[in-house]
């Protein structure tokens, strides 16, 4: 066996998957997983583990898989993460754990993410119960938002014996895992729902349709409903538009709207009422994971799709795997291109975007070379749908209804490394604190905040 070559994993054929919403990656079989796990040289001082935001003992769980001890692998993962089946699918492993794998120096790093997914899927299919909780300690914690940060925080606290209630603004729990990330990357019924069910089995209560800041306030929760601490994991917020003429024409959508209609509201299914407009030719503006998700969704709904990005392929912020999958499926890319105007027809619908070509200049603050417009390069590009995937700005609702909750100049909630905010007993983490980031970073923040809340309550109430 060649230690330096990764065990291949099977994917749905690009031509087939471009027309369905089933999961793209089919995962390892038991034999494949063992074969891949056996490549791991079990470093004494692993370089992968420090790169994991939730500190998973990577050599340990991989060692179990190598021995065919799949249940033990699942138990090992459960010590550190509430969402292994999710993280194995959506974490940017190539820039985290896998980026420092010693094997990567000479060949392919271990497929840590794919192995994590394998162990989690195996445990779910075999009904392995990985949850253990301590005796109830009588303290109540409210968690705002049921996305990755909230789920992780709630999971850790309930295991410590806390009485945890999650308040979710939408009608389904899961946050971005449900409304944002599409089915073909993260199946809802098979992967997300069981993770939420596990949380409920551990004793976490989930109240949907509660918008904290409107339906109740944080002060209400603490003063009237007796919560000893609150964790804010309310997520990223409001979609950003470019501020160019024509953006309010019919046929211009935020990626959030497009993905929410399709994922949360299941607009792609004929038996659901929510409509979605995809048009025949779609331009997705942006180059992140959300842009890839929107583009691949539009493609599956039958459109010809272009990603319009102002830098080059090298600077695309999306995960390499997602870009690769998008290209395989037939999404086209217009690099070094930026829209300056959306042009409408006489009925107020998009008919084209006026773009300009860019070239890369000097590096900017982010270290990436700044795109500079090429004079006289403007051209019209005929499309009937434009999807803006440019990121989000924080939702002001909670800070504006919670006295004394400090925000920074980007309007994000200020929290220290334990998640503590400027308000006593109020903790925060995830995109609400950092601005839009990844699932795993939000989980790391939820985990740190759970530890912070545990310490705060024990110190305050002397337990």
């Amino acid at each position: 066996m060649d230690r330096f070559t990764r065990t291949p994993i099977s994917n749905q054929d690009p031509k087939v998957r471009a027309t369905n919403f089933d999961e793209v990656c089919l995962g390892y079989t038991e034999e494949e997983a063992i074969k891949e796990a056996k490549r791991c040289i079990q470093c004494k001082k692993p370089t992968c583990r420090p790169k994991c935001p939730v500190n998973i003992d990577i050599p340990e769980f991989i060692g179990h898989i190598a021995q065919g001890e799949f249940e033990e692998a699942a138990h090992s993962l459960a010590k550190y993460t509430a969402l292994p089946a999710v993280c194995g699918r959506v974490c940017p492993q190539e820039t985290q754990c896998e980026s420092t794998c010693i094997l990567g120096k000479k060949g392919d790093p271990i497929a840590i993410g794919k192995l994590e997914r394998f162990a989690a899927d195996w445990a779910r299919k075999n009904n392995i119960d990985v949850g253990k909780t301590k005796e109830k300690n009588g303290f109540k914690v409210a968690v705002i938002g049921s996305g990755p940060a909230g789920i992780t925080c709630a999971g850790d606290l309930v295991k410590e014996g806390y009485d945890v209630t999650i308040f979710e603004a939408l009608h389904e729990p899961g946050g971005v895992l449900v409304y944002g990330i599409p089915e073909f990357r993260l199946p809802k019924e098979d992967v997300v729902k069981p993770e939420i069910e596990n949380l409920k089995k551990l004793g976490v209560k989930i109240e949907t349709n509660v918008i904290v800041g409107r339906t109740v306030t944080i002060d209400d929760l603490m003063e009237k409903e007796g919560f000893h601490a609150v964790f804010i994991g309310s997520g990223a917020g409001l979609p950003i538009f470019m501020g160019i003429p024509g953006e309010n024409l019919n046929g211009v959508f935020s990626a959030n709207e497009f993905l929410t209609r399709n994922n949360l509201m299941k607009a792609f299914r004929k038996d659901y009422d929510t409509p979605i407009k995809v048009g025949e030719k779609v331009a997705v503006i942006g180059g992140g994971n959300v842009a890839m998700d929107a583009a691949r969704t539009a493609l599956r709904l039958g459109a010809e799709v272009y990603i319009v990005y102002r830098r080059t392929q090298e600077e695309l912020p999306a995960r390499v795997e997602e870009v690769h999958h998008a290209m395989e499926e037939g999404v086209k890319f217009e690099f070094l291109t930026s829209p300056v105007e959306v042009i409408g027809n006489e009925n107020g619908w998009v008919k084209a975007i006026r773009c300009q070509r860019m070239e890369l200049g000097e590096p900017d603050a982010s270290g990436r070379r700044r795109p500079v417009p090429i004079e006289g390069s403007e051209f019209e590009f005929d499309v009937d749908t434009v999807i803006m995937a440019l990121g989000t700005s924080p939702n002001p609702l909670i800070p504006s209804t919670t006295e004394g909750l400090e925000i920074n100049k980007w309007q994000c909630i200020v929290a220290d490394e334990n998640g503590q905010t400027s308000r006593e007993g109020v903790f925060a983490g995830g995109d609400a604190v950092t601005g839009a980031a990844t699932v795993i970073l939000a989980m790391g923040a939820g985990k740190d905040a759970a530890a912070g809340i545990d310490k705060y309550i024990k110190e305050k109430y002397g337990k």
Partner: protein
Amino acid sequence: MYKIVEKKELAPNIYSMDILAPRVANSAQPGQFVIVITDESGERIPLTICDYDKEKGTVNIVVQAMGCSTKKMVALEEGEYFKDFVGPLGKPSDYVNMDLEEVKKKKYIFVAGGVGAAPVYPQVKWFHERGIDVDVIVGAKTKDLVILEDKIKEVAGNLYIATDDGSYGYNGMVTGCLEDLVKNQGKKYDQCISIGPMIMMKFVSLLTEELGIPTVVSLNPIMVDGTGMCGACRVSVGDETKFACVDGPEFDGHLVDFDEALKRQAQYKSEEVKLDKKVEEDCKIEDQGGAK
């Protein structure tokens, strides 16, 4: 699940429903809205709050059955449940947070059209409870479609009814009625609040601009989440793009770009027609909806 504790037919195809939702009732204020999902496959439908009873824990909504989703809603009977009911959403009306003495100095006129009379009612009631008389114009296509006349009469200073076909009250549109009050009957108003179909609010705003009356309109654009996340409800107000769900739903009517808003509201029209057909063919809602 959210129980329908009371259902009444106010006019043909227009129903009033009291929904048990204590958290929403407890926090609701004039000007805010809710989002309702009828069943598992349902859309998220935004509706302006029409009344609320904090003691009973109920919120009142008034629904006119027009498209697929509203037909599904009104097909439910007393004792049945909506799958989801979330709110209150949006900002409360401006006067709620103003100095009451300042509010008392102003003469308010409410201009409602169609089912817009329903969300106007709690606002008028709010003034009445604070000892302030406001005038109200309620417009409808015809006499049969005038709703909540008695309830509004109880709390309003003067109530004027206007019907397009002249079958009741002022013969003509609400704009004609308002113009008549100001120009011919010597009425003076310092603030107008208008709720109704987008096209009506557009023409009320054009008239009040001419008459020099500041005007607030309550917009009901297409929305998905209603919490600011999707941006479907964006509307041009002056030089800015606002999200009606979090920045509104009430805006300065003299600054709203109504022509754009009207076009945006029609964005899914063809789909709605298709869905509507589906309902009639598959769900046979037509038959159930008629039997009250």
